[in-house]
């Protein structure tokens, strides 16, 4: 299990990196934290001709405040840094809660926030969470830059809207509205495995304790993150009673997700888990919204 040879670049600026990407196109792979690319290289399932390593671009490592109490994260910010950052804990408690559940400590030391998003694994926690939080992503190429809502960034299985000459450089996360509650639940075989099903939930209550806004984003139950809009819609303007929650969970699990089967969990089991988790997560999120 040793990687095949490749040409290696370690640019120190985004511009240089973009120039390499423009030159090599699909022959190049971007190396961010490398915690999933390098195993593939070691298995020789991936044999890119060129690796463009972003680890020396210091401009991509940062966590900072955004206007209106939001957050901005450089794409190369290490997951471990996000995990321990007080500003993240304060402004994005959902992320703070999720971080320790991602892989293992050693992987988070190296793994990056942006890398996880660009990789677009349907089981990735941050993928679902970035949609639940209504995040926006800044993509740059030599031609310029564009902002894409997280909800539109993920196209399908490992598929994003990134062009081969584009880099994800920054993530912006808006603040949660007041009276919001959140939850993230997933079921894994062992602690820290890829989950068999999971869900990230963000809800907001109005002053009559009715649901003003809801987002449920599932992971591991489709070819990408599944934003269950119909289920969320059902809750809007409703008092989140156990019955209403149950109905929304049922809706999401039966109509909105399309789980596959693998050696760990059948599609049927995943669907069942999604329903159970949606119910539990909504319940927890609404409880939190009421409490805060």
């Amino acid at each position, binding site marked *: 299990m040793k990687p095949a040879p490749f040409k290696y670049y370690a640019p120190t600026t985004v511009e240089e990196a973009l120039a390499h990407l423009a030159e090599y196109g699909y022959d190049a792979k971007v190396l961010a934290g490398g915690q999933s690319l390098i195993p593939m290289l070691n298995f020789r399932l991936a044999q890119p001709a060129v690796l463009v390593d972003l680890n020396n671009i210091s401009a991509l490592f940062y966590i900072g405040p955004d206007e209106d109490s939001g957050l901005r994260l450089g794409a190369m910010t290490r997951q471990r840094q996000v995990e321990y950052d007080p500003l993240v804990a304060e402004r994005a408690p959902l992320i703070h809660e999720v971080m320790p559940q991602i892989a293992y400590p050693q992987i988070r030391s190296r793994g990056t926030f942006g890398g996880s998003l660009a990789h677009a694994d349907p089981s990735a926690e941050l993928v679902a969470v970035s949609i639940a939080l209504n995040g926006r992503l800044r993509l740059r190429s030599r031609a310029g830059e564009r902002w894409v809502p997280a909800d539109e960034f993920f196209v399908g299985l*490992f598929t994003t809207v990134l062009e081969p000459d584009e880099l994800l450089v920054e993530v912006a996360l808006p603040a949660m509205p007041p009276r919001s509650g959140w939850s993230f639940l997933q079921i894994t075989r062992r602690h820290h495995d890829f989950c068999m099903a999971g869900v990230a939930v963000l809800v907001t209550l109005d002053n009559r304790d009715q649901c003003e806004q809801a987002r449920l984003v599932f992971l591991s139950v489709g070819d990408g993150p599944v934003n269950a809009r119909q289920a969320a819609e059902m809750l809007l303007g409703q008092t989140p009673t156990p019955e209403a929650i149950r109905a929304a969970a049922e809706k999401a699990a039966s109509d909105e997700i399309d789980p596959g089967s693998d050696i760990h969990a059948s599609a049927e089991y995943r669907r069942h888990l999604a329903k159970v988790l949606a119910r539990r997560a909504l319940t927890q999120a609404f409880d939190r919204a009421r409490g805060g």
Partner: protein
Amino acid sequence: MKVEGEYVFNGPREEVWELVRDPEVLATALPGTQSLNQVSENEYQGKMHVRVGPVAGVFSGRVVVSDEVQPESYTLTVEGRGSPGFAKGTGQVQLTDQGDGTTLMKYEGEVQIGGKVASVGQRLLDTASKSMIRQGLEALNKALQARVAQSEGQEEVEYNLPSEAKFAAAVAKDMAGEMLSSSRMIWMAVAVIIVIVIVAVIWMSRGGG
């Protein structure tokens, strides 16, 4: 692994049949095809350079068409091999005229997958194959619409055959091979398989002769 599903083409059955039996269209619509030769009336051999995200490899394949009932159905036996693994499958394809100008394609097959990809890439194989087949068929449908438009003398629908890169991009466009946990790793293995499956399915849609 079972591969099955349905897809509705926006065109009449005869057109769909024409499309799927036109080696020209398919050879160009199958990105990365380095060669595609008809070796006998019912047998084709081809070489494909597959690139999905970071995963790449040259696959050689063979397709045998049998039980052909024009323009309704046929059976395909497909074999593909490359360094990341191999796939072998048999599938039935059925086209049904829906009477409203559309054609329902039903496909059902059993694909054996082996080698490296099978042993380390199971996590998303099923999900991946579904997703990839859908994308492959959508590409074909676009080609169909372009054809239909052309044959009806309407204003030409813009359709550019996808380049290898574009196709690969559509299949799995991912930027950084970054991510959380490799522990949980190696979905990429999957992608290759998927392409093999797509190849199988698309080849399945190739008519005889």
